[in-house]
């Protein structure tokens, strides 16, 4: 965050005084004034507020950074200045981590709203599936309900466990988060972003790239299929244009249209 001075200057314009002069003409900054509890015109605006120190973003940030996440969220609803300061990413991530004493959260969520809620349901333990595991055995091992594991991983049946490399386990005991490092991941089965805790080591880089490749492979196939349908050509042709345009479907289509026009003009079709 840059210096708050520019904002301050703008905001202080109406008040205008250098406090050195004209001190007789301005109401003393710290006097109390009456407020109308029914929210009428008599309520003081932040500009005339008794608390001119609040106009300084740095001061407000220093105060708000002591707050818990729910308090921070309520503070963000107070007025524009408070909303701006309370929405500061650093402030939010700190308030996110502090109650659980998490050491670090790695990764960037797709939207800032991820940080606004740090209930236990945002977290999960990653369990790499080994031979002999079953949903029931995992429920016992981690002291959670079978239904909760299945719900988190969107499992229709208990047997789907073997088609997966890992399962996300809901966190029942928040102590396991203390001093831990959580990785923000978009889990393809849970279909949402989760802060994942790895009890042994960190995320398996091979696993993550493999999962990423799986999703991007699936996406690629989907795009090529839709290209094929709109170009009304066979698979190979669609794949060719997709590759030639470096994966950009729009330019693939326009390239195809270009070629088609050329063929027509050249009398080939």
């Amino acid at each position, binding site marked *: 965050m840059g210096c708050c001075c520019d904002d301050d200057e703008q905001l202080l314009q109406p008040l205008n005084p250098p406090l050195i002069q004209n001190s007789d003409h301005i109401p003393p900054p710290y006097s*109390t004034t009456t407020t109308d509890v029914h929210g009428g015109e008599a309520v003081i605006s932040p500009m005339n507020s008794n608390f001119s120190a609040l106009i*300084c973003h740095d001061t407000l940030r220093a*105060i708000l950074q002591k*707050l818990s996440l729910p308090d921070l969220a*309520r*503070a*963000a*609803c107070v007025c524009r200045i408070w909303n701006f300061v309370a929405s500061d990413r650093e402030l939010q991530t700190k308030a996110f981590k502090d109650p659980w004493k998490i050491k670090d959260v790695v990764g960037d969520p797709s939207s800032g709203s991820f940080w606004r809620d740090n209930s236990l349901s945002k977290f999960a333990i990653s369990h790499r599936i080994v031979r002999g595991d079953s949903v029931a055995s995992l429920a016992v091992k981690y002291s959670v309900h079978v239904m909760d594991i299945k719900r988190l991983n969107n499992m229709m049946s208990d047997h789907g466990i073997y088609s997966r490399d890992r399962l996300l386990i809901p966190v029942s005991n928040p102590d396991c988060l203390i001093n831990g490092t959580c990785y923000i991941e978009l889990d393809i089965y849970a279909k949402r972003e989760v802060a994942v805790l790895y009890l042994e080591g960190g995320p398996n880089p091979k696993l993550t790239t493999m999962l990423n490749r799986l999703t991007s492979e699936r996406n690629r196939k989907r795009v090529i299929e839709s290209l094929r349908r709109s170009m009304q050509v066979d698979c190979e042709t669609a794949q060719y244009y997709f590759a030639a345009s470096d994966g950009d479907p729009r330019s693939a289509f326009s390239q195809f249209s270009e070629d088609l026009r050329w063929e027509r003009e050249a009398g080939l079709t």
Partner: protein
Amino acid sequence: MITLQSSDKDVFEIEQSILIQSGTIKNMVEDDFTFIPLPSVDTETLIKIIEYMKKHADKTDSKEKNIKEFDKDFMKKTLNELFALVFAANYLHISSLLELLYPSIADRIKDKITEAIRQIFSIRCDFTPEEERRIIMDNKWAHEGTEIEGTLD
């Protein structure tokens, strides 16, 4: 001895050793000023600041507990007074006082609903109705639950 002058033109003579807790005053003393006007600080606030600095000037071990007690009582002030102190401590660069003030003010925000915060701090809501609706939706989860205190402090 250094002379401080408040915005109300009251003067106070204090030992240099006590006043150097203020970064601003320390700098001016090093530049050989003995008379320091403080146009941003009124008398009432300046008295409190001096009281704070006097108490904290003597930091021997035996006084640690006393100082802690003093700090606790010192924070039992109205919000008006606390903010006046923040403003002055900021200007005077007294970081230990600021570190004391921020959590005390944050305590007044803790567990209060938004409307209560506005009333306590005398802040007018300057959102348009659509903005307000959107912001409350964004933070809806924080407005639910039974631990919220709806009454004013």
